[in-house]
């Protein structure tokens, strides 16, 4: 009886072919990698009579392979094992790229499975190994047996099909991921974006664009742009022109009429091109100016960021109309600017004002002021509107102080650049005003009006250059801050007020000379202005003289004040090269006198600075220790190892105006070094030795 029922080889081959066909047909139906891998593994095990199996898959292009699928195997025994591409069986398969059999005892990792034989085939992407199918223990009625060559071929065939399917799914996943990413980006940007195809039909649109167009996405997609924008000729014209001319076009402040909703947008249209640079439609971007961005762009020039944020949180504040409230008003005005500007070129006037306003407005915003107006060279700033805080008046006064202080630094730079300094007067008042957005719907300005505003303006007019005049109301509001000081002034009579107004002047450190700031600014000035073709009298030489002056001055036990003045003279000792190299000491001293006086440098000390500069004229003629130190610092390099480098730079510079042969140069150096002596003990003790060596070598060269 038993002989009647036999499974013959033909049936098995038939089963193998059918399985392979099934796999081929089914593989492309999967859209999840995990489903695909399980299907491949189960069918491979079944058709090849494997008792179990697993698929290892490369994780994110790393060298480590993870278990992507397993069948009929206890994978807990494999937990914690690392399947490294560079070691063991995966490495071997990577090398050959072919299916192979394995006796498990040869592989320490797989021995944990307690199986005896394995059949492995690679899953590849092009020539790269991306996975591995491993089948374990071929079953037979007599027990477990090794896999045969025919099994290897079969698994190879399955793995080839599986590789294609696996790579397709991965590709699809990547495309989906990229599409999702693009969609998310498109949807999240606040600019409305849509694209049209060659037929002019809208084929992609983001959320912001649907909001602007005021239709549902489904109502827009597939429709021609001329239909969607039928009441907006400027848009259709732009897109049409872009289609015809293949150029990017844009238009600002376009008022769109979309289904009863008016929206102001900035619009730009660009040709959409394919890989071959051929037009395939247009991409249209619409920036909605009626939303937050408009508010920000409008207000950011006038109001500090914090106030913009507060305005955005409270939409009611953007409405026309006004309210009575107490605010602090600051006026500032440049003193004598009209007459000053008469001596300046028009562009110089504009540059000066822009530079000045940039500096001042930065301070105003720092203290949360709202820049109400710029009237010529005057500024009107409000504190406490649109939003008020307890610190409004204090902020106004701190603004005024910082404006005056920053102006000192601003003027130092101007004076150093031989420009006239700017001085301002500031007036501050606090009182009730009417505040609000005043104007028409097309153009409105946030401002304040009222008597208190007028008084602030009058106080500003009363303030002399450098003064900050405040009303008693202001002082009463801030006097609890013990850091702020003021002094009473004689009450002033102002237009429209019957009684004199009590006023105070806010105190701040008005005139001081800041050495550090001066050093920094004169260095900037020298960098910009020293002749560029000079090779020795450069900023490097001047920095070296400053450094050596400080070093020698300290060794000579000079006081800190003396060293500060010494460094100041060092910075200025060669400034005359800017105008007159041959008389640079005289020109430098004159310049120093002029700017130091303008910078409130103590008049009693200006003479010592100019004398120091003049003392450096060759032959040097120092009359006191400060002058001696500067003279030695100026020629410090004569006794240093960088003498030869410096002398070459000097020679190059001298040759700009005069031909000097090498032998003449040797003679000049010989003569100069022979006559030169250091004045200070410090230089004599530290520089003479090397200077003598230099002189010796020059004399030697002259003999040859």
């Amino acid at each position, binding site marked *: 009886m038993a002989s009647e029922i036999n499974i013959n080889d033909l049936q098995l081959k038939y089963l193998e072919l059918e399985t392979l066909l099934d796999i081929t047909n089914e593989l492309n139906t999967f859209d999840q990698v995990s489903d695909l891998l399980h299907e491949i593994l189960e069918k491979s095990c*079944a058709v090849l009579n494997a008792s179990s199996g697993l698929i290892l898959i490369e994780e994110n292009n790393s060298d480590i392979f993870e278990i992507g699928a397993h069948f009929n195997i206890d994978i807990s025994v494999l937990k914690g094992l690392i399947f490294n591409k560079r070691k063991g069986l995966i490495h071997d398969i990577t090398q050959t790229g072919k299916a192979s059999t394995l006796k498990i005892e040869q592989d320490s990792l797989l021995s944990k499975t307690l199986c005896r034989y394995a059949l492995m085939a690679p899953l590849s992407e092009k020539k790269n190994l991306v996975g591995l199918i491993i089948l374990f223990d071929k079953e037979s009625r007599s027990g477990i047996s090794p896999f045969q060559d025919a099994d290897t071929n079969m698994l190879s065939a399955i793995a080839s099909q599986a590789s294609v399917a696996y790579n397709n799914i991965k590709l699809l996943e990547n495309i989906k991921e990229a599409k999702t990413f693009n969609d998310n980006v498109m949807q999240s940007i606040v600019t409305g974006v849509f694209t049209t195809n060659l037929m002019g039909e809208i084929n992609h649109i983001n959320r912001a664009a649907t909001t602007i167009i005021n239709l549902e996405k489904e109502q827009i997609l597939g429709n021609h742009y001329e239909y969607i924008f039928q009441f907006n000729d400027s848009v259709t014209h732009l897109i049409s022109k872009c289609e015809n001319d293949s150029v990017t076009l844009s238009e600002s402040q376009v008022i769109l009429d979309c289904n009863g909703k008016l929206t102001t947008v900035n619009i730009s249209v660009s040709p959409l091109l394919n890989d071959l640079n051929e037009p395939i439609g247009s991409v249209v971007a619409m920036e909605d100016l009626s939303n937050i961005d408009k508010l920000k762009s409008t207000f950011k020039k006038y109001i500090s960021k914090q106030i913009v944020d507060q305005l955005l949180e409270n939409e009611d504040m953007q409405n026309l109309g006004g309210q009575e409230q107490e605010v602090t008003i600051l006026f500032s005005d440049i003193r004598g600017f009209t007459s000053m500007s008469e001596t300046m070129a028009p562009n110089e006037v504009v540059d000066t004002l822009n530079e000045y306003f940039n500096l001042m407005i930065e301070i105003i915003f720092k203290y949360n002021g709202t820049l109400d107006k710029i009237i010529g060279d005057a500024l009107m700033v409000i504190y406490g509107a649109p939003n008020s805080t307890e610190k409004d008046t204090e902020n106004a006064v701190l603004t005024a102080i910082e404006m005056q202080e920053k102006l000192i630094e601003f003027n130092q730079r101007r004076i150093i650049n031989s420009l006239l300094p700017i001085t301002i007067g500031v007036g501050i008042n606090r009182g009730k005003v009417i505040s609000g957005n005043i104007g028409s719907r097309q153009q409105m300005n946030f401002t304040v009006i009222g008597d208190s505003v007028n008084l602030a303006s009058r106080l500003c007019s009363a303030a002399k250059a450098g003064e900050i005049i405040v009303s008693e109301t202001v002082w009463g509001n801030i006097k609890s801050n013990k850091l702020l000081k003021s002094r009473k002034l004689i009450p002033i009579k102002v237009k429209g007020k019957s009684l004199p107004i009590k006023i105070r002047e806010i105190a701040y450190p008005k005139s001081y000379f800041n050495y550090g700031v001066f050093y920094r600014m004169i260095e900037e000035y020298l960098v910009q202005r020293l002749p560029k073709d000079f090779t020795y009298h450069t900023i490097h030489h001047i920095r070296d003289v400053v450094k050596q002056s400080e070093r020698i001055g300290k060794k000579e036990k000079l006081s800190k004040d003396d060293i500060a003045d010494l460094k100041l003279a060092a910075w200025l000792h060669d400034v005359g090269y800017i105008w007159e190299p041959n008389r640079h000491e005289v020109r430098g001293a004159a310049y120093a006198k002029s700017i130091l006086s303008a910078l409130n440098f103590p008049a009693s000390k200006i003479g010592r600075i100019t004398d120091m500069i003049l003392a450096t004229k060759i032959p040097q003629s120092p009359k006191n220790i400060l002058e001696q130190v500067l003279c030695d610092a100026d020629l410090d390099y004569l006794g240093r190892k960088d003498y030869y480098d410096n002398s070459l730079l000097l020679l190059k510079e001298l040759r700009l105006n005069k031909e000097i042969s090498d032998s003449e140069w040797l003679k000049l150096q010989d003569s100069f070094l022979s006559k030169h002596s250091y004045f200070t003990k410090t230089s004599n003790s530290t520089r003479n030795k090397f200077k003598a060596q230099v002189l010796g070598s020059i004399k030697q060269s002259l003999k040859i």
Partner: protein
Amino acid sequence: MSDFITSVKENNSIVIIETNGYLNNVGGEAVSAVVYEKIAQGQSKFLINMAGTKIVNSIGVSILIEVIEKLQEVNGKIGYYNLAPIVSKTFNIMGLTKYSSVFETEEAAVNGL
């Protein structure tokens, strides 16, 4: 009872064996052990509910053929129901269905065996 056999019950003098997992050497041996034991107890009609078996190899099928041969000796019968398409296809190709019956449901199997 092995993991492969999840239950053995009787319905109308028919032994119904419920399986789960891979019908391979191990699974096949588990089925044959139950069948041989029941034959020894005088049973001759068997049904296998293969709802939990989605994959089968030729060794598992070989063992089922051995079981069929054994049943032929005692004039017994075996049938299967709840087969996955791939299992059904394999049974067809391997000739199993010539000597045993495949049913859609338990009810059809009990009535039709």
